[in-house]
Each structure stands twice: as C-alpha cells, then as structure tokens.
C-alpha cells in the first residue's frame, strides 16, 4: 500500500471529515443538477415522448411551449424535401382552464393527429384514449393534475378559453411545469388556442433515414422564414431556455459553488491539520536533506485519495437518494456526463484543497527539533 493510503487508513478518524466533505459536495452537485434536469425535462416532454425527427416552427422560437402560430402551408414546404417520409401539423400553446367550481388555471393545450402513426401523439396516450379524443371537445389530462384542474376524473367537464371540454381519459406520469398538459385533437385544439383555422404551431417531420434530419433542418433554415430543429436540438434548446430564463441555473450554480466551497474548506482544513500533526516527522526528513517536494507529493496524494474515496462513497448515496426522490414524485435525471462531471469537479476540489494544505509544509523547520 502507498504511504498516503497507509496514513489515511491508520488515521482514518482524522481524515473522515475530509472524505465526508468531498462526498457531500459530489452528492450536492449531482442531486441538484439531477433534480433540475428532471424538472426541466418536463418542458421538453412533448418532444421527448414523440417520434418526430424534425420540428419546424415560427422564427426564433425559444422553447417548444413558446411556439407562435405559423401558416399551415409550411407543411408543404417541409414535405417538399425528398428525405422526408411524412409530416403533419401540431398545435401547442398556453390557454386558460376554467374550473367547474370557479377559478382559472393556466394550461398547456396540445393538439395532434391521433392515428397510430402520429408523430405528435405522446406514447402515453393509448389507442383507446386516441379514439375517444377524436370526438369534438374531448381532452385527456394527467391524473396528477386533477386537483389542480378542479376535476375528479373521466367524464367531468370544464371550459378552456370559453369552450366546453370533456375529460375522456387520464395519463399517468406526465408531469407539468407552468400549467397542466391538456391533450386533444387538432380540431379541438384550434378554438382552445384561439388561432385561425389556417394556422398551426409546428410542422413535425419524419425522415426516411433519421440520419438525414440535420441536413434537412439546415436546408429549411437556409430557406428562411422558419425555425427548424432536430428533435434532440429542440429538446435541449427548450430545457436550456427555462434553465436560463428562470435563473434556476444561476441559483443552482451558486448552490453547487457553496457546496464545493464548504467541501474545500473542510477538506483543506482536514489535510492541513493532518499535515501539521506530522510536522516533527517531516522536520526530521527535512533535516536529513529530503526535499520538500517529496512531502508535498505525499500530501497531494492524500488529497487525491480523500477525493477518490469521498466521490466513491457519494455514488451509491446519490442513486439511493434519487430513488427516494422518485418515490416521492420528483424525478432526478442522472446522465453519465453529469455523474462524471460532478465527480471530476469534486476531485479537482479535493486536490485543490491539498494544494491549500501544502502551506503547512512551509512551516516545517528542522531547527524546531532542537530544544
């Protein structure tokens, strides 16, 4: 075993606060980012839960839920591309839900084709629901939004933008952010969104070969007059918009920075105290002419291992707490890049703490051993 690991194991109670501080920092960063990713994944849900390769909307559209009306003849423009297998209209926008017992609630109306090959129909809409949605005024919402919408279940009625709607089905697990999702047919959606009959919000396209999607998107952009994105681009754009617009990203950054600072202070103090406790032993080595960098390497190696052990402990803790959050209804998304990133940042923090702790070595003076 290396000298640093031997020291760490022997003096484990002394190093434990540093290890825990590193682990806590990694945990905080991973969970905070994971929670936020989970939260904002809701904003791109219509993209992520459907099968379109290409989304075409009004110029400079910022996020999928901020689409503005475009003319329906854009459908032909998209269909004119030889790589496109098929395309269809899609409506999405905010509207007002009037509860049966009074009061209004902002809601997100989504109108799409309902056939089984539909590009805009979310996977959670079963064929039965799709069939019932073909009736005028029929809508489907998520069971988690019933209270918010002031209804009890299937069969209840309410008004959206002054138009009567009837609940014909309930999805499960489609959480909403600003307003509950209200799914319906294109024909039902138009009056609810108060747009003209020849207007739509998006044209969704599917390529014969999905690999051609970026090329088609670029061609549509070059033609001008529209915003065109691959599904993946639009999903990220939507999430990032809400992340930055709500300043949640900044709040998260501060919280993560705070976590890192607490971790850095505790870790550096732990390493500093441990190094200071061995001051006389280091002084003997210095007296014998052993260069200071050898001792610095030992301290840095200890910092590295404190980081590795702390990060290692944080990984199962992060996944355990994410599962707990999921059970409580909050999704925590932990992509690999996030986990690797959080571990790397925390490890760099631990090694940085080692650099700070090196100042204790400057106080090592061999003459201190002579009384």
């Amino acid at each position: 075993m290396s000298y640093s690991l031997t020291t760490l194991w022997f003096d484990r109670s002394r190093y434990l606060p540093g290890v825990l501080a590193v682990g806590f920092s990694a945990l905080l960063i991973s969970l905070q980012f994971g929670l936020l990713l989970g939260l904002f994944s809701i904003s791109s849900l219509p993209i992520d839960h459907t099968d379109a390769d290409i989304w075409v909307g009004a110029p400079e559209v910022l996020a999928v839920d901020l689409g503005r009306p475009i003319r329906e003849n854009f459908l032909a423009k998209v269909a004119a591309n030889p790589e496109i297998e098929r395309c269809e209209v899609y409506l999405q926008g905010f509207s007002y839900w009037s509860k049966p017992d009074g009061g209004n609630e902002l809601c997100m109306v989504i109108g799409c084709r309902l056939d089984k090959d539909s590009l805009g129909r979310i996977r959670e809409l079963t064929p039965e629901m799709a069939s019932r949605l073909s009736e005028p005024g029929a809508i489907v919402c998520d069971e988690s939004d019933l209270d918010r919408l002031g209804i009890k279940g299937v069969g209840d009625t309410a008004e959206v933008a002054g138009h009567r709607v009837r609940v014909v089905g309930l999805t499960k697990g489609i959480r909403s952010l600003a307003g509950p999702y209200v799914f319906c047919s294109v024909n039902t959606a138009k009056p609810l969104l108060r747009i003209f009959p020849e207007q739509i919000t998006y044209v969704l396209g599917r390529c014969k070969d999905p690999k051609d999607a970026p090329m088609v998107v670029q061609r549509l952009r070059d033609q001008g007059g529209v915003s065109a994105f691959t599904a993946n681009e639009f999903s990220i754009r939507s999430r990032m918009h809400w992340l930055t617009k709500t300043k949640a990203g900044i709040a998260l950054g501060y919280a993560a920075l705070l976590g890192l600072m607490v971790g850095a202070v505790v870790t550096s103090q732990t390493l500093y105290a441990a190094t200071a406790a061995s001051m006389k032993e280091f002084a003997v080595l210095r007296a014998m002419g052993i260069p200071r960098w050898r001792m610095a390497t030992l301290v840095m190696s200890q910092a590295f291992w404190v980081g590795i052990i702390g990060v290692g402990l944080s990984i199962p803790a992060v996944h355990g707490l994410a599962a707990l959050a999921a059970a409580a209804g909050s999704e925590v998304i932990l992509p690999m890049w996030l986990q690797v990133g959080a571990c790397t940042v925390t490890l760099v923090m631990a090694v940085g703490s080692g650099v700070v702790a090196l100042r204790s070595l400057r106080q090592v003076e061999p003459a201190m051993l002579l009384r």
Partner: protein
Amino acid sequence: MAMSPQKSSLEGRDLRRSFGQGSMRSTALAGVSIDLYPGQFSLMMGPSGSGKSTLLAILSGLLRPDHGTVHSLGQNIWAMSERQAEGFRLRHVGFIFQGYNLFGAFNAVQQLELVGRWGMNMGYWEARKKARNILDMLGLSKKKHLRPAEMSGGEKQRVAIGRALMKEPELLFADEPTSALDWGTGEQVIELLRGAARERGATVLCVAHDSRIIPFADQVIHLEDGQLKGVVYPDGKSGRPDREDERSHSSKSVLPGGEDEGWNKGKLGGRLNRTA
C-alpha cells in the same frame, strides 16, 4: 585515542549566535571553535542554556551562525545556497533527536524504507531490503512490523537510529538521544552511536546531560554560557589542563550494564559493513 588522530572532518571556527532583539537579545554562542574527527564519538555536555543544541544546529547546517565558519568534509557549509546545503545534508548527514519523531502510521520497516526511497531514490524492494538488514542489525528483527505505538522508547530510538543510518551518513548528529530513556536502554543507544563511529568511520556528535555516557566518548566537549570550557579525552588526554578533574570524574562513572532482548552489543560494526 589521540587528541588529533587525523584531519578533522568537521571544523567550526569562532561561532557566534544570538537570539532576540534589543534588550531581549541573548547570546547563545560567544565565539566557539571546535574540531570533530571521523571515527570518533564526541560528546557535548553542559548545563541547560549553555548553547549545546545551538552549536549542534550550526555544525549540522540547520541554523545559520551570526559569525564564524563551519567546514564540513572540507566544504564551507554556510557559504552554500539553501539548495546546496540541503543536498549536502542529503548526501552526508544523519540526525537523531530525543523525541524519536517517527510517523505513527508506518511500521519500523517503512520508517527506514521511506528514507531510502525519498532520500536515496532507491526502488521499493531495494529500500525494503536495506531497511530490514539495518533493523536486524539493530536487534529489531522481531519488531519490524510494529508501529511506534507498539514499541518501547528504546525500540523507537533504535528505529530512529536506523532511519539515520539508512543513508550511511559520514556525519551523525544526535540531540539528547537518551534523555527520555532509562539508563540500560540509553546505554544501548550510545553503544550504537559509538559503533557507527568506530566501525563505519562516521563523525558522531552527541549532545547529552548524563555523565554516565562520558566513558563511551572519544572526546567530551564542555560548554558553559555559550563558551567552550574544555575538551576532555576520557582515555587520558585533556584539551585543557584546568579541566583534568573532568577526566577523573569520567573515569569514575558507573559503567553501563543494560540489557535488551535481541540486542547485538558490540556487533554493530560488522553488521553495518555487511549492509553497506
């Protein structure tokens, strides 16, 4: 042993050192000149505050004097840059202190091995082998894998000596190496230091209070109030006629008779040579 058996290996001239400033200034050394020789075990004695440790620090290159020169193995060590002095200590100097100062986490082998690897750029196995050999020689065969907390004071000091011997230093400085030990154990430590001088030809300077060590020394240097009061040769010759009484005192000292399991009294030299 003769007064000047050969060319001195360590030569301090007119060494002066003060501490503090203004009215708080106190003189620790007031012009001390001294010669030490290879193969000799020199003992430095004197009352508390007499400047023993200050002189040892200056001679060993740890504390810069206000005035005077130190030629160590022919080199003026206080004319060297800090890096050069560090390199000199690395190549030639070993230290033993009263407080052992062993790393609590490391066992006896690791304490020595560390010096081999960090100080002499030895490989892991080479350093380990040499550390084991030295510990065998020091009578610590059965204690190699013990940490300091599991060893007695004498064993710890022997490990500290082993650590100093890892580099096979030509100059060995010991500051009160026996003051925390009982006489039996202290005697063994002194024997080891004397063995390092006799068998390896090292120049050994030991600061101590205990007059029972005097018979073991080749020369005894007396300091008082920062000044050299005399050099006594327990084998019969004195550096100053007025200090003859010291010799007679030393000849009356009680000869040591300590014992310790695994102790290899008198065999240090041969063993050292084999490990060298």
